[in-house]
């Protein structure tokens, strides 16, 4: 009987201190945009978040990286010339057009030189002309420190590109509220993107330097053919070919009011803010809906997949299970499963694999990788201790999954995981930026901001058997993809893989004239070859080499 006491205490505690649902008020603007308002008294500043549904998953093949580029070129900084059309706006746009033309000419000339080295080059002349245009552009752009309009008013803005959305968070003193509404409306009207070329160069440099990432390998292998499995690194040539006007056209379609939710957290009432928001953001023109992206379905039971690669500086085991989208009834149960496995320092993987068996030194479990709008992944990221193999770690992880599926979940453990999720929810409620982010993500990935609240309410009705059922259904070998990463000292790329890339490129160069298409096919080929064991890869390499002319081997 006394065993029940902790339950009662816990249950009473949950009711006594259950997080109050944040009082979110929802309104629709005349142009279709949604407004969510959370009133918080006593704040002298506000958080204004814009969420545009879509994100990387909806980028067409011709505009890879568009969401990341918009996050950096349209948002993050607020230059006067981008939001307040000046008398020299026509000059600015004309110069941006010229810059675009020269960048494209340079790109093509460099490609031509790669194909026909030794021929006369136009590169220096084009570079000189580009430099001159960019110098003229600079004279039209703001040059003094603190010309960022928000920074000058004590504010800040950050933008985040995800697979499901573009999220932009701004914080400003309360008195700048109308200024924020006006500025954001003007930014969307103008879509000037005056710093496009610099931002694109920065993104390309980042992608090149960081190379392939483990999670990208996992998503690519686990979600083949779906935009969730796309690695931007494979689309570098297309990204380099993306023009200023292409990005503007994409932004006009994807950042339209009916795909936008405005979230406000601050010390103001809906009566006060609604007319202001309507006047500015509500007056953005309604853009006729274009063709919506049709995304392929992902079959969860694709079979057990396995990838081996040499990457990084230490061994790492990444295991992903294809799970349903956030709206699916099993999703909450899987969230609880993830919590039991890897939430907190006393979770199963921490206590068993890190402490008891001493196999692993670092554990991380995440849900909805890379997004939650479509079926994604539940990922266990494990880094073995010195002296323990990846196979050993994979075996131990498998045992823990079986234990979760088969053995009853102790009540103490269940209550612990529930308490952690409750406390996490409370921490999110307490932080205006986190709350806005949580509501925005729920809307972008689940189609309804209420999911942020409903999840925690539904959690109280969840029982262990439901979690075990979901674990048996979704965390099965047929849904699993395993990526085994071993370091390769002295090089960031496996020598066999490097050779495979060289051979594939040589073979492709003879058959596919378009460089972008060629590089994409090579990347896809490498991705497929990573599914093979080391021995099979070596055999394939020899077979491919045999197809090369002797002097090219």
């Amino acid at each position: 009987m006394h065993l029940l006491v902790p339950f009662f205490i816990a249950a009473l505690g949950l009711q006594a201190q259950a997080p109050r649902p944040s009082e979110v008020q929802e309104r629709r603007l005349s142009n279709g945009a949604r407004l969510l308002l959370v009133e918080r008294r006593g704040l002298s500043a506000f958080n204004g978040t814009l969420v545009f549904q879509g994100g990387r998953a909806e980028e067409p093949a011709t505009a890879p990286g568009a969401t990341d580029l918009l996050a950096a070129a349209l948002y993050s900084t607020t230059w006067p010339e981008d939001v307040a059309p000046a008398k020299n706006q026509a000059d600015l746009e004309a110069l941006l057009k010229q810059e675009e033309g020269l960048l494209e000419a340079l790109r093509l000339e460099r490609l031509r030189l790669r194909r026909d080295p030794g021929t006369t080059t136009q590169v220096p002349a084009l570079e000189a002309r580009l430099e001159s245009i960019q110098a003229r552009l600079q004279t039209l752009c703001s040059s003094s420190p603190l010309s960022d309009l928000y920074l000058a008013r004590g504010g800040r803005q950050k933008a985040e590109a995800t697979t499901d959305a573009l999220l932009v968070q701004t914080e400003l003193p309360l008195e700048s509220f109308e200024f924020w509404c006006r500025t954001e409306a003007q930014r969307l009207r103008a879509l000037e993107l005056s710093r496009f070329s610099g931002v694109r160069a920065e993104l390309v440099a980042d992608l090149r330097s960081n190379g392939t990432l483990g999670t990208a390998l996992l998503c690519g292998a686990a979600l083949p053919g779906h935009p969730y499995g796309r690695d931007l690194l494979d689309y570098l040539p297309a990204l380099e070919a993306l023009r200023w006007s292409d990005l503007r056209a994409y932004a006009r379609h994807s950042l339209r009011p009916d795909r936008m939710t405005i979230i406000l957290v601050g010390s103001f009432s809906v009566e006060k803010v609604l007319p202001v928001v309507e006047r500015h953001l509500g007056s953005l023109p309604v853009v006729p809906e274009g063709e919506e992206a049709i995304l392929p379905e992902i079959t969860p039971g694709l079979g057990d997949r396995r990838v081996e690669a040499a990457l990084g500086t230490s061994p790492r085991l990444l295991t992903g299970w294809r799970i349903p989208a956030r709206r699916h009834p099993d999703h909450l149960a899987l969230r609880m499963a993830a919590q039991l496995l890897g939430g907190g320092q006393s979770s199963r993987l921490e206590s068993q694999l890190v402490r008891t068996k001493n196999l692993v030194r670092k554990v991380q479990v995440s849900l909805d990788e890379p997004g939650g709008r479509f079926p994604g992944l539940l990922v266990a990221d494990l880094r073995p201790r010195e002296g323990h193999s990846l196979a050993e770690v994979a075996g131990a992880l498998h045992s823990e999954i079986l234990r979760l599926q088969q053995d009853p979940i102790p009540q103490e453990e269940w209550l612990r995981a529930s308490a952690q999720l409750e406390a996490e929810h409370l921490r999110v409620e307490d932080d205006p930026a986190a709350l806005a982010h949580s509501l925005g993500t729920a809307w972008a990935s689940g189609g309804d901001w209420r999911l942020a609240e409903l999840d925690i309410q539904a959690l109280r009705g969840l029982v262990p058997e439901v979690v075990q059922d979901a674990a048996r259904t979704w965390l099965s070998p047929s849904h699993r993809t395993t990526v085994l990463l071993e370091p390769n000292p002295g090089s960031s790329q496996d020598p066999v893989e490097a050779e495979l890339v060289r051979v594939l490129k040589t073979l492709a160069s003879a058959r596919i004239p378009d460089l972008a298409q060629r590089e994409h096919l090579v990347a896809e080929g490498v991705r497929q070859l990573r599914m093979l064991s080391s021995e099979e890869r070596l055999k394939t390499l020899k077979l491919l080499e045999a197809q090369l002319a002797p002097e090219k081997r």
Partner: protein
Amino acid sequence: MKATLGILLAATLSLQAQSGVHSFTLANGLRVLHLEEREHPLVRVRLFVRLEPGDVPPGRQGLPLLFQRTFTKGETADLKAGELDRNLDDSGIQLTQSLEAGGFTWRLVTRSRDQDRAMGLLADRLLRTLLDPTLLEAERLVCKRLLERPEGTPHERLRQALAQDPAARPSMSSLGAITLQDLLAFRARVLRPDRAILILHGDLGLEQAKRLVLLSLGAWSVPSPTTPASPAPSLVSTTASPGSVGTLQIPSPGAGIRIQAVASPSGKLPREIVELLGLLVPGDASLPPVRVGVEDGCLVATLDGETGTPASVAWSLLHDRLEALRQRGFTQADLERARVAWLARRSLDSLHVEAQIYGALAEALGQSATEDRMRALSLEALNAGLSQWLDPAKLRVGALGEPELLKTLPIR
């Protein structure tokens, strides 16, 4: 009955109390700041313990890091390995420990109903952790491995490597030299209540806070004086080493050249200058293609060269841009604009509990900028501060890229 009414009345009064910082000091010297905020049933605690020059003996670079890792994972006198974590997790309490510029920080976030338990566990970790020699060896291995093969993307590794003053950077030999005795002596020297500041924020009243702190940390005693380990290249050294010392190079096949310089402000630089320059420098139009940001209180300048750009060219460009700005300085109009922005920005703290806690801590440490001093700041002082902050001799510089291209760097 009277007692119940008294408690109820006290609770009501404390509910009505206005937010504000109250401070008190325990008999053991622990300074406590209390900020009441009743919006959500949460309590946040931050404990800061200051590191001082002389805390790290010569040849023991990495001692604070190794101490932190061993201390965080150790058993306590009452709780076996994992039990403390389990107790924390049982109530959804978050407890983290970090080594930051200037000292150790413990951060605790708990539902207010679990505040007693949470503070008890913090005290357990702080006062009763056993330093285990086996754990020390395991963590030493981890530190050595991370030194040999740091994790993260090449960009992250470069940034991470530049985060620390070269003089305080651990080496294989310094990590190998650290003994359990060093750890014990370091603990006695550093983990003292008279070096610490505790901040309590959230759903608890002043009297409640006093009771809580007294019960949990009132027994924290000042250990008998230990011989300071001087002279020491300290973690909190106020003078950075010259850029030529330990210039970092991270070979990264396939990557374009990246040059990065980190300027850490001297401890003597007035806070007002640090804050204004943090607003002015990143947006200066003379800097591109060099990008400058403020990270962890440091100015971080980055230049990405196009593929094939010799490292020496990128290197010179970054240095020239920073030096030109340092020589030129800012104008009176820039100063005025930055002052206005700084004054307005303070209201943003109301959105961030952590910023409010940080503000209270900075004030207690005498490191916060004040409105009066900000208004009195002259242009000459601002530009002198800029010159001091961007002194080329004090920059920590590193480069990343193709191994062949790195060979062209002027300083190796």
